[in-house]
């Protein structure tokens, strides 16, 4: 595999957003809280960052906006869903990270 063929590394916040959307369609705030909780508060997606990323990811084709019928009390109607391309990119990234984890395990990093 030449370098050019390698999938581009995903930005950390893109990776986290894709991960959040992997099993469900979410609206913006839900994505934010999920990422925040999963990273134990280390990655906080402020609104600008959040929607800037969502916009660009949609343009790249990793995710799509979907209109979901929502309960009356929820004003937010714009949901996001992961596309097949996004799923592939997520899988590539997970595989890449897994390789690193494998290497680290072989080097006994965790025991030290």
């Amino acid at each position, binding site marked *: 595999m030449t370098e050019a063929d390698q999938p581009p590394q995903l930005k950390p916040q893109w990776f986290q957003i894709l991960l959040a959307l992997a099993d469900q369609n979410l609206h*913006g*705030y839900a994505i*934010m*809280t999920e990422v925040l909780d999963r990273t134990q508060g280390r990655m906080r997606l*402020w*609104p*600008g*960052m*959040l929607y800037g990323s969502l*916009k660009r990811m949609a343009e790249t084709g990793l995710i799509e906006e979907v209109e979901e019928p929502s309960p009356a009390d929820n004003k937010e109607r714009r949901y996001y869903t992961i596309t097949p391309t996004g799923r592939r990119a997520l899988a590539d990234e997970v595989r890449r990270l897994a390789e690193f984890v494998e290497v680290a395990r072989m080097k006994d990093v965790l025991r030290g």
Partner: protein
Amino acid sequence: MGSTGRALYRLLLRCYPEAFRRRYAEDMEVVFAKALRRERDRRGWVGVVSAWLGAAVDAVARGATERGDAARRSWRTRRTNTNPTLTLGDRMTLLWQDIRYAVRGFIRRPGFAVVAMLTLAIGIGANTAMFSVVNGALLRPLPYEEPDRLALIWETFERAGMDAVPFSEADFLDYRDQTETLSHMAMFRRLEDAVLVGDGEPEVLNAQMVTPSLFPMLGAGALIGRVFDPEEEEPGRDAVALLSHAFWQDRFGGAGDVVGRTINLSERSYTVVGVMPRDFQFPPPVSFGDLMISSQPDLWVPFALDGANADRMRHAFFVLGRAKDGVDLARVDTEMSAIAARVAEANPQTNTGVGARIVPVHEQSVATIRSALLVLLAAVGFVLLIACTNVANLLLARAGGRQREIAVRVAVGAGRSRLVRQLLTESMLMAFAGGAIGFLFAVIGTRALFRLNPMDLPVMFDTGLDLRVLAFTFAVTGITGMAFGLIPALQTTKTDLQAGLKEGSRSTTDQGQLRMKNLLIVGEIAVALMLLVGAGLMIKSFDRLQSVDPGFDPENVLTFLVPLSEARYPEAEQRRVFIDAVVENIGGLPGVHRVGGVTNLPLTVNRTGSSYTVEGEPPPEPGEFRIAEFRTVTPGYFEAMGMPLLSGRGFSNLDGPDAQSVVVINETLAGRHWDGEDPIGKQITGSVNGDNGPHTVVGIVSDVRFFGLDVPPEPMIYRPNAQASNRGMWISVRATGNPEALGNASRRAVWQVDPNVPVEQMETMRSRFADSIAKPRFTAQLFTGFGLVALFLAALGIYGVMSFAVAQQTKDIGIRMAFGAEPGKLLAMVLTRGLTLAGVGVGLGLLGAFGATRLMQSLLYDVSATDPGTFAAVGSVLLGVAALATYLPARRATKVNPVDALRGE
């Protein structure tokens, strides 16, 4: 989130581009509100503050990113939209198309193109010519090594207010010993007795005495042979000479073996040691203050410095210094003052109150012409501005006729930017054609200017049109093209398609154009007025200067110099006898009314001043210089010059060597010491040659403007030739008829006494008088020329705009006439309109002139830069011209035939 919080967050949201906001703002607000609540619940007020801080940072940082992104995108889209596939080649093709199109347009209407190009050519040409003079005189460095480290050093007589006194020899030696900031110091002065005696008529050469260090200081070497050795400044070893290239060619035919030959100057022979290169000139042919007029020297000889006998009182020498590497001139200046203080302490009798200061050599050489040149450059810039305005007006007028063409082009899909580019190509093409013609004008004009050289411009600055001038012309042309092209181009393309295509319709664009034209014309009048006020002030100043009473009558007087060398005429008595014989010979010539001799003629700039004391007044304290100019004259001098005797008597042959020592003083001196009293019979001491008197005052003569018409008269003491010395004299001959007819006879009369004495600088007093005011005259003439061009262009502009307005209103006027309006009223209507424009322009121009002419004050003699008379006169002249330029179109309006006007629709 309360309403305040929401408002605040919306404010933050303004960081994002609008498109982004439209799409996400609502969602972002909701997300932030929830996040804020969550933070407050978990961390209290700390959470709230950190959430707001985070949101602010987020908004600013992401907002900038999104905006950058949006801008990039829109640029990319626009580029791809307008010119989907434009390569460089395509662009060149388009440009070529535009150029061909423009040229075809010019050919179709050649009159318009020619007028526009010539107008521009005049403007650009005048600017180029003026700039090349400024470039040569002010910008180009002197042709010496590192000229910016060179400075002239002057002594100063602080209490007498004299700030540029030449050095004395002894002071020079002290300074040279003590300086630590200068690497070289050289002294120079013209050699007075440089009469070349040979086969032909005797001739005075321009020989400069220089200390040998001059050549290494300037970084100059000899073309043939060598420059002076340092020892050659010692007395006895100084009989050597360096020739100028021109003199070597003229006198020695460029002989290669010239080194070692001898040359005889006033009975002293010098051995030639070398020849300087063709481009070497020293002193630079510029006037160093009014103390030294230099022309091209023929040769240089060493300055013999006699340390032991050096004089401290004779301030007659120019000193040049070079700052050491890394020493700036300010430090040199400080050091010179410090040395002056030390020298004064050591020599209190002679040097109390004597200071020193430096003037960078370039500054000194341009000091007298800088302000005149810069003011003229500004004036000529104004002319170009007016030319641009006129061409812009022409273009606007033509644009009116092109609306259909433009509308057609828009209809078939030409974008506005494409049209603007097309129109700008036209104006640029016109500008560059004008620029090329203008450059030709400039080449011719500059040559003419320098042949006349009325400003005493430093001719050494060869004012060829160099790259800098070319770049200047190019830049001016480019700016000009934009200046007159852009407004009409934008104005024209704002066209209304529908209206444009309809035949004969009057669109709103016409109104816009008229407004623009009005604006241009107001500006043009204002600029023209400023220029004319400048010209008016110069004329008035020159008139004042010209009508200054010089104190003598310059008509019918021939003057020339008869120098007597120390070597040939060592004794004062011999010189006296010689002069008396010459005066007597000339006095006997037919056609001579009176003849007299004087040691320094008025309006030549040589000074021979010395201190004096007056009977009954205490002598001046050391450092307080009371100085009068001393002149030695023959008995007929006052009459020959037409100087009226105000009191007492003039000199006669009875004032001989053994008679009572007498003097005649001028009005200024009499007024200074004997205000209201009669000075006749009072005693004065002092002289320039050691014979200090006392002398008895026997008469008072009129003040003479010795040093120029604009220099106030100074105290003056005249002594009779029989009682004082001379080193040759200026002879002035008052003729009964044409003085020039006496030239040859006068020469022969001198050579009858001694054929080896040269006759120099023969000129009528009238022409010396004219020369002395040549510079202000030329400045005034040039300014007037610019002013008249401006006036003419402005008149054309007003005429054009008013014609345009009348033509546009033809229908209007027709209707009014059909309803019985009187022609007189219509005339008044149009006139009022034109004069309103002119009035606004004149008002603005007067304000502008009020501010701008202050910069000219130093060029004006006896006229205030805000002289109300000039302002009023120029304002009314301009209004008058404007009225005339409006009257013609206005009359045409009254001739409108209502039927024709209405049918024209």
